[in-house]
């Protein structure tokens, strides 16, 4: 099981979500909310921008851009061969 997450992507890089919240410590973390917002397994996401200190990140998903903190982005696991296409 790889543990690469959306937080590891560079600006402009895309990847496909493999799981959301699998390694999360808190069961009632906001992973359900992340999924409701559209971050579901199988979705392609792109990092659009990062704030200074690389936190929060702006991520495009399902036709919109959503700002997430690094900790939240780390809940979104991606396939390891994320590419910058």
């Amino acid at each position, binding site marked *: 099981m790889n543990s690469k997450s959306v937080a590891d992507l560079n600006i402009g890089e895309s990847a496909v979500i493999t799981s959301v919240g699998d390694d999360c410590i808190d069961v009632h973390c906001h992973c359900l909310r992340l999924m409701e917002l559209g971050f579901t397994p199988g979705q392609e996401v792109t990092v659009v921008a990062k*704030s*200074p200190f690389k936190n929060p990140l702006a991520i495009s*998903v399902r*036709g919109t851009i959503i700002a997430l*903190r690094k900790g939240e982005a780390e809940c979104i696991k991606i396939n390891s061969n994320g590419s910058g296409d």
Partner: protein
Amino acid sequence: MAQATKAQNCHETGTLTEITNEKPVIALIGMPNSGKTTLFNSLTGSNFKTSNYPGATVEYSTGNLAGKYDFESGVLDSPGIVSLNPSSPDEEIAIDGLFNHPRFGLPNVVIITADSTQISRQLFLVKQVIDSGFKTIIALTMNDLLGRKGLEIDSEKLSEVLGIPVVKINSKKGTGLRELIEESKKIILLYNIEHLSSKIYKPSHPTEEAIAKLYDFTEETEQKVLIHNDKQVSIDVINKKVFRTLQRKPDENSMKLDKFFLHPFWGIIIFIISMGIIFTSIFWIAQPLMDLVDSAFSSLSSAVSNFLPGNTWYSDLITNGVINGFGSVMVFVPQIVILFILLGLLEDTGYLARAAMLIDRPLTKFGLNGRSFIPMLSGYACAIPAIMAARTISNRYERFLTIMIIPLMSCSARLPVYALLLAFLVPPSTPWIAGIGLGALYLFSLISGAVVAGIISKFKKTDEKSTFMLELPPYRTPVFRHIFKNTYYKSAVYVKQAGPTIIIISLLLWALTYFPNTSPQIETGSSNVTEQQINRIIESERLNTSYAATIGKYVFEPVLKPLGWDWRVGVSLISAFAAREVFVSAMAITFNITEDSDNSDNLQKSILTSMRNAKSTDGTQPLFTTASTIALIIYFMFAMQCLSTVAVARKETGSWKIPLMQIVVYTFMAYILAFITYNGLNLLGIR
């Protein structure tokens, strides 16, 4: 129980137009930025705006269908929601209102706005609402934006898949609206609401599987309904891969602009510049307008007094009590209006959400959230709308912390006070020093807010997890009509919320300074006194023997003496509980009358003259020294001198805990810091 009360309260303040119970009700819901409020505006013709910043509809808004639709129905707007599972107070309001509105009960029809450019996301909420049993209609928005990508939605197909009416609309052009109402009408006439209500149930918290399943459905639906709008394109050309990437790509221009606006370096520079512009315009544009309002009310007061018989309690009540009371409410309006226009501009362009993202990290250091940014910024105009804006913060603890520090932000009511006190400190030949001083006070209020938040968050830990998930809407050209309407609405909220308290306290203060000795007897032995001088002596005597003076001398003077102030300052401070700005007019009443001054000058100059002439209680020293005036400024920076804010904080937090803490902690802090300032400066030899 608590939720019901909250919803009811919101309803009370949010209602613009009453809907009677007999009329059918159409509820509008939708995800943030899906065009819901624009649709509401078009349907009702009411004074609301489309919001580019999620959560701008912090209140319910209700209206009636505009006459041109020829159908009597109420329309209910509510904050944007992502799902039927709330994660913040504003979402809770929207969802509670949908299932159990305190006044309207269940809606006959639910119209859901869905942004067609992100249909796989937007159908998520649609499906949840349909599954809850509501009679639902989809209003597809942003069809022109989707068209620019060369795509369109087959609305007939979508209607077939979901089993509900689907109407493509363009609220700005007005297309599709009539059809939308026709569909609503059909449903309203066909189904009895009592019959429907038994079939509606609130869904329980979804599981991951349920969410994934729902999204599987929306994606499947998306594949069926999303088609190329160019009919010439053959099926072969529609390469599956190209089609897939095209359909879920955000607005191209926004992505390009974000490279600049969210740039790690330039993003911060732009942020600082835009905040700088906001604050300088508050100073340079608002101040002359505030002076204008101020002088308009003073001339109204003197014009009215010419018509009234002199020396009666009711003429004094009207000129000094009522008109001045209204004046102190209206004088803040220019600054509030300017700040909200600028905020509205940032909001409408889509920048405000980005600003919240940029500032999130620094704010978390003080236990706050990026979402605290907009309430804090609004706090520089007025704490009342600012505290209400904190509803978009989902974490209860961060929300309360934000509400806690909002009163420290230098609101517009402090500006006249600072202007007066700085004018006293700075020689008139160098007014720019006062300007710098004012800027420093504004900056310092931000720092003190951060420090207080930091200290509280050090001592009070919370288990509640902090989140920041904020949709960044596409950049758009702002619509000025909407901004002005929204500014009008927010200023009206201020006048309605703060106005009555300010006026009541102004009247109370008037009574305390006027009674019991309404017509004091004075000796007019010498014949050299003019009528004007006699009047002044009468007024002075009346005030000196008034209830306010009695309370002031025996209660405030001992407390305030260590700070270098006397009972007259104390009475002015108490009156400032109506609104901080009332301090200035109260100083005018208490000092202009008791001290010899030239009334021909403008208000500020005459107060300044009286302040310079004022002597301490024993009559030997000047009352206002550099030290005691700086101590006053320090006091005003911290003291919780606004009863309207207390009332709103009570309402928004649902208990007295936060407002009481604000009163006790901030008043104590204000006193201690003013004490340290006054005595410290005296020790340093500054008097």
